[in-house]
């Protein structure tokens, strides 16, 4: 048997109120690369992303078929501990969602939940991950301030730091720059590119240019169907499926 990747999706179908949002998607997400999921609005990009850490669970009327293996464990197996699954993944949402607490407490939120850590260690953890997210210099003098006072771009990096502090192996991004100005977007993109040395990054975007800038691997979804996936350079230069070509050339969006 070949060595499995961190995340392996097998015959995944997702239904929402009886409507099929994802149909029979199977894919191995390459480790330590940036995988970008592209496709027109409403094609199931976000659903696919959220199915990876079971964020679909709290929604009404959702049914999931198939398997998602994370490190060989099916996360939809009832015996699987959902908090452990989520611990392995940091999430960046469309709009940065800082928690209603101080900057420090935002980063410390995960570590405090998962481990019993001394105050001194916690300080180190917070600093380390704020640095990792490229936010430390901007906030080191005001860690006690409410996170809501940060700019949106800073909040998104705070969310990144907060996610990293849990010690994940995977970073999920759901159009993580869509609410940000160009500079902040660039900043976040740069972070993601640095982080792929150690993390498996999966990003959903509807911005093709962004996909071209950061993607190592492309997943193209169309109307809930996995149309094409492969190394970014190949897919962009030489799309096999006519629908991918149509999307890349802008015929469909």
């Amino acid at each position, binding site marked *: 048997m070949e060595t499995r990747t961190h995340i392996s999706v097998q015959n995944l179908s997702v239904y929402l109120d009886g409507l099929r949002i994802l149909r029979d998607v199977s894919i191995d997400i390459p480790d330590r690369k940036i995988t970008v999921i592209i496709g027109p609005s409403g094609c199931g990009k976000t659903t696919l992303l959220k199915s990876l850490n079971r*964020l679909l669970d709290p929604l009404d009327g959702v049914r999931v078929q198939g398997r998602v293996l994370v490190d060989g464990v099916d996360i939809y197996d009832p015996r699987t501990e959902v908090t452990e699954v*989520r611990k392995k993944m940091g999430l960046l949402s469309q709009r940065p969602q800082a*928690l*209603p607490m101080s900057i420090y407490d935002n980063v410390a939120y995960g570590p405090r939940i998962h481990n019993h850590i001394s105050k001194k260690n916690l300080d180190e953890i917070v600093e380390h991950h704020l640095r990792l997210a490229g936010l430390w210099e901007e906030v080191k003098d005001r860690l006690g301030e409410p996170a*809501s006072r940060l700019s949106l771009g800073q909040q998104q990096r705070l969310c990144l730091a907060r996610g990293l502090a*849990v010690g994940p192996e995977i970073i999920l991004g759901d159009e993580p720059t869509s609410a940000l100005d160009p500079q902040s977007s660039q900043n976040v993109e740069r972070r993601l590119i640095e982080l792929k040395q150690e993390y498996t990054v999966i990003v959903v975007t509807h911005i093709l240019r962004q996909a071209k800038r950061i993607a190592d691997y492309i997943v193209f979804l169309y109307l809930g169907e996995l149309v094409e996936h492969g190394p970014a350079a190949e897919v962009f230069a030489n799309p096999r499926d006519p629908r991918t070509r149509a999307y890349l050339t802008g015929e469909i969006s």
Partner: protein
Amino acid sequence: MSRLRPVPVLRRRKLKERIFRALMAASVLLVVGCLALIVGTIIWKGLPAMNLAMVTQTPKGGYYLGREGGILNAIIGSLYLASGATLLAILFSLPVVLYINIYAKRNSRLASMTRFSLDVLWGIPSIVYGAFGFIIMIFFGLKSSLLAGIVAVGLLEFPIMSRAADEVIRMVPRELLEASYSLGATRLETALKVVLRQCLPGLLTAVLIAFGRGIGDAASVLFTAGFTDRIPTSLLQPAATLPLAIFFQLGTPFPEVQQRAYASAAILTLIILVISLLARGLGRRYTRHIIK
């Protein structure tokens, strides 16, 4: 031809606009006017009877019939009673509200049934809570007491607090919950560390609304809290309350005692005002962390 001058149709629309604005302004005036009128009457009628003894002494000369002494027993009694009842209501309504918002799916049957039940409970007249409290009291072999009053008023406050808190917690964006879940937090951790913090000012308001209703209600304590001239020193002793003090004082044939009823009403209103302001101030203090 450009139509920069009003044509008949436009004039009619403008007239409508003006009429409705006037109506709305009149309603605002009515509301503010009512408040001013009530507060004015209470103060005007109660001020002559207001003195230090009112708020520092218990009644002298038999249950409120005397013209001497004060209503300290009712002030303290009401504060004890409403505080106890509010605590009791918090104890039950927070879990219910968190459950239907965080644990149950958003539009599940359970959640909507619970909301419906709360609405019905809200609509039940307070005298029924009083009667119900009385039955419970008899069942447990209790006499009319502070405890029995707390139970009855707590029941009265519970749906009010729950519904008000529910409205607040329902406004929490789903993405905020997802942010917490995605960090591996359980629902309980999310509820206690994120939702409660995000909703703190609104929840304070909910608690306050309930407290205000509780401290002002006469019917629910009529059979349950009992009558006394003394300040209760244990949960099992009867407790006087301000609304009942007002009721009995107004019911006497003596004008001086009736005047004291307005003084009591002024004190009750003042208590509610102070607590409102306090909650507002506290609420503002805790808004700094809120995510908009």
